[in-house]
């Protein structure tokens, strides 16, 4: 035992003196390659600044980015490799939910600090059975969007008499849970709402024709969709052919993101869009500066994933300052737990890593109406956090997550 400890000591010492390696499993190929590209962009903006300032104790941050191709088993393998072979001391999991749950289990074994920066599936941090002490989330959480969005949708539904609803979301953890939660809270705020049709296209499905025609045949008053990225672009292109958006009110939580806005050639107008990242939300000098700097340094527009990853990177930097550069998973986790950061992405100018479930709160949530020109989403209405906290607590009790 002693021998093993002595043999291991130089390696640890070496690891603590070189660059701080942060492993980033993400998706860099296929339909949602933009997720990986703009996630890395968000990280680079923060880490480059940290490195330019000299790092900490002479140590700079080096990102090791790996492509999981969106496959959960590959995400788990890549994460193991990043820790075991590439000697990464921290994992910044920029996977979608399909991969994040697999990464979470690897982190449980490895004990390194991990921040999930893109997975919005609520149970990842809300379910105590899945809890890993060194794992956190800076991605927005589905239940938060669902409560805020449900409230917003119910107000519109009451005003316009939208009673019959259809849904169209990707068939995996995020799509299923996000849609169930959104409709649950839309019904909570407006008891007249009923779901008459559900469509579950596969993740990365190339053709949505049968999905669109199914929605048309449902003759619903309104539709909710949690499709995202390239899938959403393809869906919109194909739905436009049938004039789907003219026939019903549409609520799309992921519509107003630049990654979608820039790709859709006939951007639908008048669709209710969730707030993702927009340079005018909040309409502050800090947000505009962050946008300009991002575009200048990364040569593309930021997305929802960009800000989520930028916040993750800022938590890591602040935690490193607190631990004086010690990357030990437990120490870093202690530093991050409950930490509040000054941030232009927060409703009150700050965001907080809530200690009770290691998830981000106080970030900007809301809905607006899509338009074809800048700023693409107008009449943005931010949701208040207090009702969200209250209903989230009830939701957790109902799920059996808390007593």
């Amino acid at each position, binding site marked *: 035992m002693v021998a093993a400890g002595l043999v291991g000591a130089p390696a640890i010492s070496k690891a603590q003196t070189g660059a701080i390696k942060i492993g980033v499993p993400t998706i*860099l*190929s*296929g*339909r*949602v*390659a*933009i997720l*990986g*590209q703009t996630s890395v962009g968000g990280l680079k903006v923060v880490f480059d600044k940290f490195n330019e300032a000299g790092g900490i104790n002479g140590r700079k941050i080096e990102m090791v980015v790996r492509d999981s191709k969106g496959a959960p088993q590959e995400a788990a393998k890549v994460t193991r490799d990043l820790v075991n072979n590439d000697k990464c001391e921290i994992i910044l999991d920029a996977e979608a939910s399909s991969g994040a749950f697999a990464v979470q289990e690897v982190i449980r074994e490895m004990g390194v600090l991990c921040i999930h920066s893109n997975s919005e599936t609520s149970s990842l941090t809300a379910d105590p059975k899945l809890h890993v002490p060194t794992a956190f989330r800076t991605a927005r959480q589905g239940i938060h969007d669902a409560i805020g969005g449900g409230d917003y949708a119910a107000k519109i539904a009451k005003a316009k008499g939208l009673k019959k609803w259809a849904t169209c979301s990707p068939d995996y953890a995020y799509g299923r849970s996000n849609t169930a939660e959104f409709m649950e809270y839309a019904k909570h705020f407006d008891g007249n709402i009923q779901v008459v049709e*559900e*469509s*579950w296209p596969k993740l*990365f*499905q*190339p*053709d949505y*024709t*049968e*999905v*669109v*025609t*199914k929605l*048309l*045949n449902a003759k619903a008053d309104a539709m909710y969709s949690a499709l995202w*990225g*390239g*899938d959403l*672009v*393809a869906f919109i*292109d*194909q739905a*436009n*052919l*049938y*004039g789907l958006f003219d026939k019903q009110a549409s609520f799309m939580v992921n519509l107003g993101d630049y990654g979608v806005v820039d*790709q*859709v*050639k*006939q951007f639908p107008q008048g669709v209710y869009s969730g707030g993702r990242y927009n340079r005018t939300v909040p309409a502050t000098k800090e947000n505009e500066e962050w946008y300009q700097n991002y575009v200048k340094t990364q040569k593309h527009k930021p997305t929802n994933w960009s800000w989520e990853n930028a916040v993750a990177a800022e938590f890591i930097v602040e935690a490193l300052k607190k631990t004086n550069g010690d990357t030990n998973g437990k120490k870093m986790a202690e530093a991050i737990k409950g930490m509040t950061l000054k941030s232009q992405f927060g409703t009150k100018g700050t965001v907080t890593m809530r200690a009770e479930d290691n998830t981000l709160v106080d970030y900007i949530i809301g809905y607006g109406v899509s338009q074809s020109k800048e700023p693409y989403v107008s009449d943005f209405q931010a949701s208040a956090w207090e009702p969200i906290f209250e209903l989230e607590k009830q939701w957790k009790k109902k799920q059996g997550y808390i007593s």
Partner: protein
Amino acid sequence: MDLDALLRCVGTTSCVVTQLTSGMIIGMLLFLIASGVTLIFGVLNVINFAHGSLYMIGAYAAWTFYQLTGSYFVSALGAAVAVGVLGILFERVLMSKVYGSNVLMQLLVCYAVVLISDDLIKIIWGPVPLSMGMPPEFRLPPIRFMGGVIPPFYLFMILAAMAIGLLLWLVIVRTRFGSIVRAAAINGPMVSALGIRVNLYYAAVFGIGSALAGAAGALAAPVRSLTPGMGFSILIESFIVTVIGGMGSIVGAFVASIIIGLTRSFGSIGFPLFVDGVMFLIMALVLIFKPSGLFGRPHR
């Protein structure tokens, strides 16, 4: 399973019209790809596992030509021709070396081409999805027919695919070229012994099959996200079509494409979570009761 919804749909003209055309759209695109696969297999006796990549290249080529010319029709034609030429090169440089080899060797060559082409697409066009958008000439309100909804572009797609299929059938059945190709498919050495350069015909067939994939990619480009690897999922479905229709039979590919298209279209209403399962079930039933496929001849 929601058979009530399916019965309700079947009892409503508007739903039947919309789902029938939806099935035809899905089917005709599959037909173009599957007919290439089946043509190449029927004549050359090789399974082109890289056919999905040719479809992908067709879509990207159409996108590029569209950016350069602004004309969708020129782009579609250009993409089909470009992929056809690429197919000939592929056949001459690689596939012709593995004729007669075991399937594993052919699979290996094709898989290498799939990986290389995916990476080349990433290098040339980038990893981020591209969208061509609907050409202005098709930005029209959907056509209303018996209460159903038919987008003009999809009507064009169906007619274009059918016209290409008909032309292909005429070329194979009614021309001297087709006669030689059919003869070479049955006994290549014998055709060669008659002084006909069979290798040229093999290359031409491969080129035509590839051009069909390129045309399918071009037809899909305005309505689908263009991404590296986009050919993979459609390849699986086109193989299902090829197996159901019968390896080597263009008529079989046509009928099987419609079967699969309608299964997906009406299945999304009646059994949305088991559509893929039903497609494979149909294939399994065909393999059990008619292993050569609905229109196929027993394998040589």
